[in-house]
C-alpha cells in the first residue's frame, strides 16, 4: 500500500504533462466535437512536423546546457540552397537535398566549435550566428521569393502522400525515431546527457566533451535545414526571409515543455515530441474555435505556466 502511494508520487512528474495534454484535448473536444476526428489529428501531426523536426534535433543541444537561437535563418538558408542547386545548377534531387542539409550541419558546426572551444555563452554566439546566417542568406538570395517550378520530386517531400499519410509526417516520424534511437541505443546519447549532468565528470572520465557538444549543434543545424527543405517544398517557394524571428522561441518552448532543463542534464526526445504536440494541439484548437489572437496568447501563456508548475510541484513532492 505504502509502496503504491510512493510509486504514484514518483509517477506524477512523469505523467503531469500527458495528463495536462489530455485535459486540453478533452476541453477542445467538448467545445468542438470536430476536433476529435482522426482527420484533424492527422492534420495536427502534419502541422507539427516542421517545428517537431527542429525541436527533436534541438533537444540534444539543450540537454548539454546549450541553446541554439540560429535555427530560423538556417531553415531559410537550406531551402534557398536546395532551390539554387535544383534550379540554377540543375542538380538531381537527392544530392541537392543532401547538400542543403549539409549547409545546416556546417553552420551548426561553426556555432558548436566556437561555443565548445572557447567556452563562450551559447546564447550570444548563436545570436551572432543568427545575424550572420541571415545576412549571408539575404546576400545570396535577396529578399525575393524564389518560386520552385516543375520539380515533382521536390514537391513530394512536403506535399506527397505515402500509404495515405503525408510524406512530411513520415519524415518527422523517421527523424524522431532516429533520434530516440540515438538517445537510447548509442553511447552518444548517454554522453550528451552526461555532459549536461556533469560536464567535468564526463571530461575526467575521458569523454571528448567538446566534440560531443559540437556534434549536438551539428545535429540541431541539420534538423533546421531539413525542416527548411520541407517548408520550402510545402510552400513551393524558397526565401531568405523565412524562419522569421520567433521560430527559435517556438522550438525552444516545445523542448522545454517536454521537460528538458535549460541548465542541462534532463531531457528526452520522446518527451519533446509531447511538447511539440502540446503546442500544436493548442494552435489547432484555437483556430477551430476561432479564438481571437489576444486571448490565444494569454491562454497559451497561462496553460504553459500551469502545466509546468504542476510538474515542478510534483517533482518537489518526490524529492
Amino acid at each position, binding site marked *: 500500500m505504502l509502496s503504491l502511494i510512493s510509486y504514484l508520487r514518483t509517477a506524477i512528474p512523469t505523467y503531469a504533462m500527458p495528463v495536462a495534454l489530455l485535459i486540453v484535448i478533452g476541453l477542445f473536444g467538448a467545445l468542438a466535437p470536430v476536433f476529435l476526428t482522426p482527420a484533424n489529428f492527422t492534420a495536427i501531426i502534419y502541422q507539427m512536423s516542421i517545428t517537431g523536426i527542429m525541436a527533436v534535433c534541438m533537444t540534444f543541444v539543450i540537454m548539454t546546457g546549450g541553446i541554439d537561437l540560429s535555427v530560423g535563418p538556417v531553415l531559410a538558408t537550406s531551402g534557398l540552397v536546395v532551390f539554387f542547386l535544383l534550379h540554377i545548377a540543375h542538380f538531381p534531387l537527392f544530392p541537392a537535398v543532401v547538400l542543403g542539409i549539409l549547409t545546416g550541419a556546417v553552420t551548426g558546426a561553426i556555432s558548436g566549435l566556437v561555443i565548445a572551444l572557447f567556452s563562450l555563452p551559447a546564447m550570444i554566439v548563436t545570436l551572432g550566428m543568427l545575424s550572420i546566417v541571415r545576412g549571408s542568406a539575404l546576400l545570396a538570395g535577396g529578399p525575393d521569393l524564389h518560386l520552385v517550378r516543375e520539380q515533382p520530386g521536390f514537391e513530394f517531400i512536403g506535399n506527397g502522400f505515402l500509404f495515405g499519410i503525408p510524406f512530411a509526417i513520415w519524415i518527422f516520424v523517421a527523424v524522431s525515431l532516429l533520434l530516440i534511437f540515438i538517445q537510447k541505443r548509442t553511447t552518444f546519447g548517454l554522453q550528451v546527457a552526461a555532459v549536461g549532468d556533469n560536464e567535468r565528470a564526463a571530461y575526467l572520465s575521458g569523454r571528448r566533451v567538446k566534440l560531443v557538444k559540437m556534434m549536438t549543434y551539428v545535429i540541431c543545424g541539420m534538423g533546421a535545414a531539413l525542416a527548411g527543405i520541407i517548408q520550402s517544398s510545402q510552400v513551393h517557394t524558397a526565401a531568405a526571409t523565412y524562419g522569421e524571428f520567433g521560430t527559435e522561441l517556438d522550438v525552444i518552448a516545445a523542448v522545454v515543455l517536454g521537460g528538458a532543463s535549460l541548465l542541462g542534464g534532463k531531457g528526452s526526445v520522446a518527451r519533446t515530441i509531447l511538447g511539440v504536440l502540446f503546442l500544436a494541439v493548442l494552435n489547432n484548437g484555437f483556430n477551430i*474555435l476561432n479564438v481571437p489572437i489576444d486571448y490565444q496568447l494569454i491562454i497559451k501563456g497561462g496553460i504553459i505556466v500551469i502545466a509546468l508548475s504542476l510538474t515542478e510541484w510534483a517533482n518537489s513532492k518526490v524529492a
Partner: protein
Amino acid sequence: MSNKKERAEQEGRRDFLKGVVLGSAALGSGLVTPGLVIGESGKAMAAQDERVKMAFVQIQPHTVSSAWSVGLEEVLSTQQTIDYQQLDGQNKVEVQVSLMDTLINEGAKVIFLQPIDSVALGPSIKKARRRGIAVITLNIDASEEHAAHVEMNHYYGAMDIAKEMGKRMGGKGKVAILNAPPGIIIRDQRTNGFVDGMKKYYPDIQIAADQVADWSRKKAQDVLSNILTAQPDITGVYGVNDSMALGGVDVCKQKGILDKMVIFGNDGETAALESIERGELTGTQFTDVYQQGRFAAAAASVFVSGGVTAKEFKQQGKLLMPYVIATSETVGSIQPAQRW
C-alpha cells in the same frame, strides 16, 4: 475612370525618361500639391556637382520593398551624382527612427520611407522637414506632413476586394480572413477595408473566422486547414497578403475543394498572378510596384534638381497609384514587365 486611362498610358513605359516625364506630369497635373512651387535657389545650383545622398528605409527586407527598390534604382542610377542606399528597419519602429536620424545627420536629400507606423515615424519626419530633407513615403502614409506619398490604397483596395469577392460568392456565405498580427498599420487598413466593404456591399456575407497567420504561407496553410475543419461551409478566403492567400490555395487544392472557393490575396506578386492564370487564386489587388518606385524616384529627382527644399512644402503631395483587382479576366492585361 481616370485609373484606366492612366493604366493604358503607363503600359510599356519602362525607361527613365518616360518615368521622369510621367512623374513630372503627375506632379504638375496637380496630383501633387499645387502649392509646391519649383523655386530657384542658389543652393540647388551648388548642390549639382556634389554627390546627392538618397536612401530607402524599408520595414524589413521583403519582396515588395525589394521591387520598389528596383524601380527606384532604375531611375536613380541614371544620374551619376546620386548615392542610393537601402536600409533595413528590422521590423522595429525604433530602428527605423534611428536610421532616419542617421540619414538626417548624413545630410541625405531624399528619404524614401516605408513606415511601420504612421504616427510613430511622425516626429522623425518632422525633424527631417526642419532640416530641409524631402521624405517620400511609400504605401503607408504618415500622420506628419511630408513631401509626397506614393501609395496603392489599402483601405479602398480591400473594399474593392470585398466587393468582388461578394459578387463571386453570390452575395451570401461565410468568409475567413487570414490575418497578420497587429502592430503594423497596413494590417489594420486592409482588415478594416475588407470588413467595411463586406458590410457595405454584401451585408449577408458573414465573416466567420479571423485568425492570425503571421504573413506566412506555411502558417496560412495550417490555419486555414484548421478553420475549414471546424467550418467546412466557408467558401470565401481573404489573405491580407498574397503569401497567405496562396497558402489558402494550397490547402483547398489538397482538400479538393478549390473550385468551390473564392480566394483573394493582396499586393499582386508574380506567384499570385501566375496562380490566377492557372485558375487557382481568384484574385488579388495588383499594383505595379516597380512603377511605384519609379514614380517615387521621379518625384525625388524633381525635388533635388528643382532645388525645392522640404521647408517650402505647404501641403503634402499624394500620388495614388492605380491598382487593379486582378482576376482571371483582368490578369492578362498585366504585362510581364510589370510583374514583380
